[in-house]
């Protein structure tokens, strides 16, 4: 090398890439990750942080794993580079193992994980678990809890894993070895998995039209300020390649968005006032070099910073400055649930416990920062199509149309693969900005948030300040529970009302309590907006109610398992919102499943502590419940399955799979309802032009609500097929091209679909590709005819969970069903240093029916990882922890062993008995860990995260008190 510098500072570099020689010219300081993606189109290498903090961009450089975001392109010269797109037996064995074990969920970390693992396996013949942990320790995963990734790598290391395509097909068709009689209940490999393990899945940043302009958002460095703009036209004129500088004035429709119709308080671009650090002020649109060449400090923005109102105490203080003029006391909304009389309840109790609890902002830390592109269609333009990562395409559509000031028919949302969501991609982020930019410039526009931009500008888990009080009688039966919980909702409403409404319904925990009074407030501050995050406030509330339960057990001399068992909601009980639990209520079974482990752990820990004064162990236990679906609101889902004259069976599924596996679960349900195997379907997922509204991927509702819609659609199509053949309900179906065979006992009838006149033409058809073999199709001409216009039969299904409104005292039927769980944690505390290592978690979850046990376990593992982070290390501080080295999430080395019990107490209203598990997975973990810390040390933790210095300080107090 080093080649002479060429035009525009580019250097020529030659290297071997995945076995083939490559030669290119690019700017030398541009990272290798960027060069692989932008110059070579190898978008399997993901960019999650540009700082070496997440490992998503891990590639092999001269046979060693490196973060491609930290390697200058200049240093690629002469090197051997391998990426996730590499072919080879080892790579294929790892891919198959990842699929089989469910080691890829959203798939954004998967390329990095695969490369890190291949680095290990190429150099180490017989790695053990610690070797695997060392090898993948530098790659963060937010979905899986790492458990199944380690299992997959160890299986390949052990030599058991095959790599041939048949092995792969088997995982889809016959995971148990035999052809599937039923898909429900089997460990089917995820139907969208293969693109995730080959690097061909397309996430928000992975594709855009070649002529797309780039957009970069200029954000407020101040938490509260007014500003005026100077002469932007001159900036534009002086910056070659800059096409537009968008301001609030450029928003054609309403310059506001928000979840609730009456609370659309967040501007797309700030109109002279900013309310949090990171708020969007301007959008620069132009060539990539142009938008990345502008130095924000030189833009004509005159700032007048004001004293920011940060934190709940400041916002609720007497005379606090209002964040929004129309809310003088900063209280956005209040929630309330009241039943019985708590005064009486406390009086009749033999023990009363009370406490105050504090939780921090928690960042979703999905490894994929928000990204996407928008395309104007037609002159005018007639329509805007936004392609981006999202959890809620139909909500994005409504928000975008409103911001553009156009009818909703003029907007289309096309979700990409979603590299983790956890609630953080329920709110719009890039969508309205992209739509406005494409509308104004009449050109395609793309954007990729940086990690810091993502963390500073998008929603968080609400910090909570909770007071709670509980009483119980001598036997441990709860007689009263009271809670006053304040939630810091930040500068804008987002999902604040949902948190305020969900918490009263769940706040006393999954227990029988006759006298309850739960009050909540969502409070505006000048902090980062808080929104939806796995559990909507319940994880915070559970820390309070479970701690009080431990207090009561201690006061009454009862075992902590026993006090939960005696109070556990059961079939036929009434909740404190007055709802009769008619069907699935498996908390008693969950607790019973843990009992043997609980007793053994207590004995084991006592023996350990007798010999170990410094490193003390403890066990804790916690329960949870969580209503599936939206609180007392209609939240229907509609699914459609079509059969065309050529025999193509297409499942039009509007439920976005954010990694949790809804595409697979819904395919399994639809398959059994129809009577054909899951591999018979081609899938069209989440495109607002092609699929019906399935609602948001939130509230643990897709398996339960969309699962029912998928079941109904499958049954509808089956009914029509059987009618066609005059066959009975037990007939077997098979589909071979246009030949549809219906076997009914001895009788068999073949229907040639090509001879049936098309019932109707689908309005618009297309496909994101057959899930097993093809990548998602993300070219602009997505709606090309895919041979789907000749629909001969169609199955439709719509389902809305039956709920009622809640009265002023929170009484009613807020949810059709609830997920229940009990988890126990065993920890070791180094009492000299205040550090906590979680050794074991045993988790029992009542999921009604595990449609796919591997996916359910994956949700539990991932939820536990997030619960562990919430308890021990995660604390977002605006302006301070806006990256993934100051904001810590668990690595593989922080994970405990996990044992899962899947309790199947069938929910009669659920599809095949199933309920949701997404949020339930997380909620019990933190309180179980806190209970274990208390058991080990005597320290009653009331603030999370329990950073080492906080626990040590508490231990000092504890010591002083004795």
């Amino acid at each position, binding site marked *: 090398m080093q080649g002479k510098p060429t035009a525009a*500072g580019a250097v020529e570099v030659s290297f071997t890439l995945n076995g083939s020689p490559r030669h290119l010219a690019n700017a030398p300081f541009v990272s290798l990750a960027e060069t692989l993606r932008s110059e070579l189109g190898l978008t399997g290498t993901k960019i999650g942080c540009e700082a070496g*903090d997440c490992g998503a961009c891990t590639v092999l450089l001269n046979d060693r794993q490196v973060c491609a975001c*930290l390697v200058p392109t*200049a*240093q690629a010269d002469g090197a051997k580079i391998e990426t996730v797109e590499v072919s080879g037996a080892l790579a294929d064995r790892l891919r198959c193992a990842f699929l089989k074990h469910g080691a890829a969920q959203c798939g954004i970390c998967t390329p990095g994980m695969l490369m890190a693992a291949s680095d290990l396996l190429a150099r180490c013949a017989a790695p053990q678990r610690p070797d695997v942990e060392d090898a993948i320790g530098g790659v963060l995963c937010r979905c899986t809890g790492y458990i199944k990734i380690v299992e997959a790598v160890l299986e390949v290391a052990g030599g058991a894993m095959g790599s041939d395509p048949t092995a792969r097909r088997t995982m889809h068709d016959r995971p148990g070895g035999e052809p599937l009689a039923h898909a429900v209940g089997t460990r089917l490999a995820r139907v969208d998995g293969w693109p995730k393990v080959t690097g061909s899945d397309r996430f928000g940043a992975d594709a855009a039209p070649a002529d797309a302009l780039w957009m970069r958002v200029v954000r407020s460095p101040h938490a509260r300020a007014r500003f005026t703009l100077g002469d932007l036209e001159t900036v534009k004129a002086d910056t070659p390649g800059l096409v537009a500088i968008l301001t609030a004035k450029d928003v054609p429709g309403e310059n506001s968005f928000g979840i609730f119709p009456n609370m659309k308080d967040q501007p797309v671009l700030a109109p002279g006032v900013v309310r949090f650090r990171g708020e969007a002020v301007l959008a620069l649109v132009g060539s990539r070099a142009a938008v990345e060449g502008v130095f924000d400090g030189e833009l004509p923005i005159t700032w007048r910073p004001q004293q920011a109102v940060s934190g709940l105490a400041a916002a609720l203080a007497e005379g606090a400055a209002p964040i929004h003029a129309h809310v003088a006391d900063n209280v956005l909304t209040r929630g309330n649930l009241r039943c019985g009389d708590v005064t009486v309840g406390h009086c009749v109790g033999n023990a009363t416990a009370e406490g105050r609890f504090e939780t921090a902002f928690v960042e979703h830390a999905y490894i994929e920062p928000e990204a996407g592109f928008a395309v104007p269609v037609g002159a005018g333009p007639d329509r805007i199509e936004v392609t981006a990562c999202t959890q809620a395409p139909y909500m994005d559509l409504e928000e975008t149309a409103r911001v553009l000031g156009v009818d909703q028919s003029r907007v289309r949302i096309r979700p990409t693969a979603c590299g983790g969501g956890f609630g953080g991609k329920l709110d719009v982020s890039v969508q309205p900005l992209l739509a406005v930019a494409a509308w104004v410039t009449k050109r395609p526009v793309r954007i990729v948030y940086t990690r810091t931009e993502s963390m500073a500008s998008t929603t968080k888990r609400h910090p909570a300040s909770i007071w709670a009080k509980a009483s119980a009688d001598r036997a441990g039966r709860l007689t009263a529970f009271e809670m006053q919980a304040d939630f810091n909702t930040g500068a804008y409403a987002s999902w604040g009302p949902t948190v305020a409404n969900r918490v009263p319904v769940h706040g006393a925990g999954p227990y029988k309590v006759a006298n309850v009074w739960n009050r909540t407030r969502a409070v505006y501050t000048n902090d980062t907006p808080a929104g939806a995050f796995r559990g909507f406030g319940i994880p915070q509330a559970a820390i309070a109610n479970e701690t009080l339960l431990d207090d009561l057990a201690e006061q009454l001399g009862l075992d902590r398992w026993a006090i939960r068992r005696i109070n556990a909601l059961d079939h036929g009980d009434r909740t404190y919102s007055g709802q009769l639990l008619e069907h699935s209520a498996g908390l008693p079974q969950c607790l019973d499943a843990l009992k043997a482990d609980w007793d053994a752990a207590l004995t084991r820990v006592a023996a350990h502590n007798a010999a170990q004064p410094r490193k003390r162990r403890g066990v804790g236990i916690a329960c949870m419940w969580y209503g599936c679906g939206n609180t007392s609101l209609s939240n229907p889902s509609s699914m459609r399955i079509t059969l065309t004259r050529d025999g193509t069976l297409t499942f039009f599924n509007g439920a976005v799979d954010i990694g949790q596996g809804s595409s697979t679960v819904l395919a399994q349900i639809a398959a059994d309802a129809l009577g054909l195997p899951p591999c018979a379907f081609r899938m069209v997922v989440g495109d607002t032009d092609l699929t019906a509204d399935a609602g948001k991927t939130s509230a643990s509702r897709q398996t339960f609500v969309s699962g029912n819609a998928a079941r109904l659609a499958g049954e509808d199509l089956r009914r029509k097929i059987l009618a066609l053949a005059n066959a009975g309900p037990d007939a077997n179906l098979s589909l071979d091209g246009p030949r549809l065979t219906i076997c009914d006992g001895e009788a068999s009838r073949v229907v040639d679909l090509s001879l049936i006149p098309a019932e109707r033409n689908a309005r618009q058809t297309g496909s994101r590709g057959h899930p097993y073999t093809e990548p998602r199709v993300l070219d602009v001409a997505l709606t090309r005819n895919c041979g789907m216009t000749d629909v001969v039969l169609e199955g439709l299904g719509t389902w809305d969970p039956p709920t009622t409104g809640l009265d002023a005292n929170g009484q009613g039927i807020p949810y059709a069903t609830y997920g229940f769980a009990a988890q126990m944690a065993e920890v070791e505390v180094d009492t*000299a240093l205040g550090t906590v290592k979680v050794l074991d978690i045993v988790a029992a979850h009542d999921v009604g029916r595990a449609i796919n046990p591997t996916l359910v376990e994956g949700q539990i593992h991932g939820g536990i990882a997030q619960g562990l982070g919430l308890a021990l290390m995660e604390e977002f501080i605006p302006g301070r922890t806006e990256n993934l080295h*100051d904001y810590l999430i668990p690595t593989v080395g922080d994970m405990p062993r996990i044992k899962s019990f899947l309790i199947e107490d069938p929910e009669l209203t659920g599809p095949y008995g199933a309920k949701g598990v997404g949020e339930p997975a997380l909620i019990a973990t933190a309180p179980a860990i806190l209970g274990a810390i208390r058991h080990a040390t005597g320290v009653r933790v009331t603030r999370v995260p329990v950073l080492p210095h906080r626990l040590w*300080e508490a231990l000092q107090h504890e010591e002083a008190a004795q």
Partner: protein
Amino acid sequence: MLTYHRPATLQEALAIRAECDVTVLAGGTDVYPAKAARSAWGDMRHQDVLDISRLGELRGIADAGWHWRIGALTTWSELIVAELPALFDGLKLAAREVGGAQIQNRGTIAGNLCTGSPAGDGQPNLLALDAQIELMSASARRRVPVREFLVGYRQTACRADEIVTAILAPKPSSVNVRSHFLKLGARRYLVISIAMVAGLVEIGTDGRIAKTRLAVGACSAVPERLLALETALVGAAPSAAADMVTAEHLAHLTPIDDIRASARYRRHAALTLVRDLLAQIAATFEPRVA
């Protein structure tokens, strides 16, 4: 437009360093994160870059007589697998604690030193090794003891026209040497230290401590030696060392409150880690039970 220099020889590199205002880049593990942090808030400017990765003179670890010479481009991973005496056990342990495998494969020990972060995992060990830093400019070569090289918070003695070319670790007089390192962070892997301690203990023929060098990191603007403790430990039985450590021995540390820990905790944690380190070293001298 940023100028990116990637010379093939040290001589060329030093000429560039003499003439241009450049950021020196080796593995990039500090340069790129700093760039990302600035550009995220709209500061898209960047200094010109001097990429020293082609300088073969700066590679390799060698036995150079009275000392070991660690080339400035030596990565953490290269150090981990290098065949080195027990003197380097502590530094190897630190190497395993830096970031994750990706960072260890790219990051250099000299780069960790030049960044001068108070939490640089390599620095306490270099103090314990009593290392000297070799610096070159176009006109001169000099050696600076590591304790003089680290001037203050992210400040080093490396001048604008100099490049760190090697780290020199003197060989101890005794063969009975132990070195050790302990790091405390809030998670496993990819974690910035709350506190850390490195130590070297030489045992005399009488089985007692002949010499120690101990250094605490992340508890001051630069890592600090524990000179009073080192003096006090001379002549002590290794097994008695841990109990001899008092808070006064660490009184000169100046820890701060930050997002990772309180100053008070850091001071306590450092004390605990020093005791743990000495106890663990002592355990290696215990006669093995058959």
